[in-house]
């Protein structure tokens, strides 16, 4: 199953390229949009409340987004509790801090992918689990 559209929120522009190529090579998604700040992503979700065209199926959000007013977990909380649900949403971060993972779970994140040089195996694993996230049957999972 291929995901039609993905939104990546990450302050590291080089990772945008890595993620896009990895998703394309693994046939994970057809389209991918990348933004560099949580504020920008929040604005997009606000607009999608009225006009859902272009709303992504999945959102991968970095934990610490430099240059943003709030962190990735807060963005997930706002998306889930203020701008409506319906998006498979999770964290993609180089951190694997247990406290932060618990916070993410409480804010409504469905998964946590630990960023590393070799991201493809984790994305492949995520792709296999995606159906469960989409129909809300899969439990929260950390991809290490």
């Amino acid at each position: 199953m291929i995901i039609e559209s993905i939104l990546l929120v990450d302050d590291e522009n080089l990772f945008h390229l890595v993620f896009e190529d990895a998703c394309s090579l693994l046939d994970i998604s057809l389209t991918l949009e990348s933004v560099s700040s949580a504020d920008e992503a929040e604005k997009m979700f606000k607009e999608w409340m009225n006009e859902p065209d272009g709303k992504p199926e999945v959102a991968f959000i970095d934990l610490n987004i430099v240059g943003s007013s709030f962190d990735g977990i807060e963005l997930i909380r706002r998306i889930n509790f203020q701008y409506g649900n319906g998006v498979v949403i999770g964290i993609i971060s180089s951190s694997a801090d247990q406290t932060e993972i618990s916070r993410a779970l409480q804010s409504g994140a469905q998964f946590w992918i630990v960023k590393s040089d070799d991201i493809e195996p984790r994305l492949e694993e995520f792709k296999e689990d995606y159906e469960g996230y989409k129909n809300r049957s899969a439990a929260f999972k950390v991809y290490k």
Partner: protein
Amino acid sequence: MKKIQLPAHVCQELERVANDHKVYLEGNILKVIEPVSYDTFNEYIELAIENDTKNRKKRLEITKQIQKQNKELRKSQNENDRLVSDIKRALKEAEEANKSVASQNEKLMSTQSENEQLMADLKEALEKAENAKKSAESDLDLIQKKTQFELIGNIVSYALYVIVGTGVITTALYVMAILHGSTETTLIGNTWSNLFGILLTNSFSIIGTIMGVKYASKDEPKSNT
């Protein structure tokens, strides 16, 4: 998602461009093209996907390499920033220490100046005290001398009264004895003569003593011998 079906002439044109110029469709558009009934275009699509995958893999590797180098650079930069921060902090501490030392030096200089002033005042006070002591000693000496002179003066006065009195009484006795025609005039005369000689001798002795004392008590500069 519904896939797209390309018309035959578009497929042929795409194949022609690929054959002539090695230019292929690339990207995710290849994933949404419906396979067609003729094999050459399907082969074209397969080749385009293969090329695209190859290019993406290559790009991914390069991007990852750059990302890795970036991370190392960022780490080095962080380390440099930390070192610069440490150096700045050390410099600031050194400057503060310098300021503190300068301030302490200033205080010490001020204290030293005050001490010097105090020393000068003390010296002056000591000098004044010594002068006062000398003056007091001199005054005491003067008073002592004055008292001595007064005493000597009294002694001399009484001695002179006694001498003059004795002289007058003896002379009067001698004169009365002569006038009354006494036979003891020889004895009285010798006695008067001896007594007068003794009295004169003693008088000169006293006067000499007084003169000597006066001469000795004069304030004359002492010789170094």
